[in-house]
């Protein structure tokens, strides 16, 4: 029993960092925002009640079709919440709004005839996001918190939502496989069933496949095998590498052959991608290149916040950070030309080619190094921007003093471990050490 419990907790609450969940949030809500943006769901208010056959909670809670004007307002709020959830601004509120209004808007069309089962996975995934800490990675909220010096630690908080979407998908496939065997038995595979399904689909390719009985039976067998075997992908890493790509290709195949679309469910495959590992692999050549070095006043709250922000934006990990207060002996050994007083006065950047820049020019050099800063580059080189930037930086730097820029007071952050690994640690930094 203890072993089972341990495995349960390891599966759901194995500590991980927020990157994968954050990337999934960004892509999931981004795709659905784009999808729903052009759809006018308030049009359902104009459809006759003759089509109204309410589903589950619409029936049980007597939820009506609201007037078009009301739907227009709530639809606007819902789409705005989808956009905010995507970028991760006020993430807790926006994901909760997305889910609560999604219960109505995603469910509404299903009361008019056909129930698209796969939207169900989307709605439940919205619910999972609403309960999760998905705004801790790849979000505006994260950048705001980073500028205050907070950095999220690895936690089970970032594991269970992803694993729950995995489980949801695996159970959807498993249910489909079990339904086939329950209603039709092995005849679903070995009879002419798949031949007839292909003929019903009535596309040039399905009609061609329907001419080969053995191929239709092979496709049917593969379908049932992969669907009923889907839960194995949760338990075995090796099975995962076979089953999930297999199911993905199966759905692509159905789209090509039968023109049946699984858009909603296919979006959820992004939860199976190890984004952080993939990112590291893709950016390895960039990381191997010489990087920039940033020198900052580690006893200044503003500088600490700026460095926190830079760390969040530095997704490739090409920049090294040197605290000109605490790391000075090491800086002195490696960068003979630098002066500590100057580094404490202005943020310095030493480029890969050995050039040392300060203030606005340092920031502009950093924008070249940060992929997330690339969109800013054209703006930073506009005539007059450098002039204004240097003056702005000078004004802020002149105002800055250790008294006016106190070190951020971090609340105790929960770090480490899984469900039982919670331990309270208080962050320490240069100023508190001093």
């Amino acid at each position, binding site marked *: 029993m203890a072993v089972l419990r341990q495995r349960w907790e390891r599966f759901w609450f194995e500590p991980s960092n927020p990157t994968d969940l954050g990337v999934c949030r960004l892509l999931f809500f981004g795709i659905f925002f784009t999808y729903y943006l052009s759809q006018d769901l308030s049009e359902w208010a104009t459809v006759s009640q003759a089509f109204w056959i309410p589903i589950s909670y619409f029936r049980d809670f007597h939820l009506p079709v609201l007037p078009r004007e009301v739907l227009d307002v709530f639809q606007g709020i819902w789409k705005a919440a989808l956009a905010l959830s995507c970028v991760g601004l006020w993430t807790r509120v926006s994901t909760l709004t997305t889910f609560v209004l999604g219960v109505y808007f995603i469910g509404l069309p*299903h009361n008019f005839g056909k129930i698209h089962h796969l939207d169900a996975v989307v709605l439940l995934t919205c619910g999972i996001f609403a309960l999760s800490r998905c705004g801790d990675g790849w979000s505006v909220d994260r950048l705001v918190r980073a500028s205050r010096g907070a950095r999220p630690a690895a936690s089970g*908080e970032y594991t269970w939502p992803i694993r729950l979407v995995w489980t949801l998908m695996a159970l959807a496939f498993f249910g489909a496989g079990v*339904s086939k065997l329950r*209603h039709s038995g092995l005849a*679903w595979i070995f009879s002419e*069933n798949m031949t007839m399904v292909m*003929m019903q689909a009535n596309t040039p390719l399905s009609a061609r496949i329907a001419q080969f009985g053995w191929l239709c039976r092979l496709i049917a067998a593969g379908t049932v095998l992969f669907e009923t075997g889907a839960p194995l992908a949760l338990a075995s890493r090796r099975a995962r590498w076979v089953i999930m790509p297999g199911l993905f290709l199966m759905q692509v195949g159905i789209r090509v052959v039968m023109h049946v679309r699984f858009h909603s469910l296919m979006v959820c495959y992004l939860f199976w991608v190890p984004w952080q590992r993939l990112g590291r692999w893709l950016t390895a050549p960039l990381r191997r290149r010489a990087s920039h070095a940033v020198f900052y006043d580690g006893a200044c709250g503003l500088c600490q916040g700026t460095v926190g922000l830079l760390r969040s934006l530095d997704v490739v990990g090409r920049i090294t950070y040197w605290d000109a207060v605490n790391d000075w002996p090491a800086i002195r050994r490696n960068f003979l030309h630098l002066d500590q007083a100057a580094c404490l006065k202005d943020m310095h950047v030493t480029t890969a080619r050995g050039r040392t820049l300060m203030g606005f020019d340092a920031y502009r050099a950093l924008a070249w190094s940060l992929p997330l800063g690339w969109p800013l580059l054209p703006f930073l080189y506009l005539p007059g921007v450098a002039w204004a930037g240097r003056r702005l930086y000078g004004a802020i730097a002149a105002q800055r003093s250790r008294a006016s820029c106190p070190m951020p007071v971090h609340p105790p952050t929960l770090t480490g471990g899984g469900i039982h690994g919670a331990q309270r640690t208080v962050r320490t930094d240069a100023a508190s050490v001093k």
Partner: protein
Amino acid sequence: MSARRAWVAQTAILVVLGGSLYCIATDTEYWPFSQYEMYSQLERSGPMSDLQLVGVVDGEPPSEVPMKGPSTIRPFDWVRLRRAFQRILEQPDSATRLRVALQDCLVRYEARRVARHSRRQPMRAVRLYRLWWDGVSPRAPRSADRIMRRELLAEVVAPVEEI
């Protein structure tokens, strides 16, 4: 994770697991939980049938135009509308309901056509057919020339002033 957060996560996990497994075990659906029974019934060879929605436009003689594209049946898509008609046909008051539903399709089409100053021709009626065709042989793919029978299920004519 704090104890409170762990409780929230465990509850979410149990609700999703419980709901999904219950629907699979009992072969029931309570959307968004489902047993995902699509395509689970055995398809047998024999005559196949499908529904077809057409609009009747003026001309000599009047012609029928299939109403299948999203622009003619919004906010429905054809898959949803076809299933909606199928479900209406299963209802006890299907005759009345079907006429109201067809009337609704006609009214919405015309309203959209007028509102958008569309060049489409006005429709004087909409008809719902059930098509039957030969599905015995896999070498007989479904096509217009294989249709064996066309059964008119309902027709709604627009009032004269709307035409």
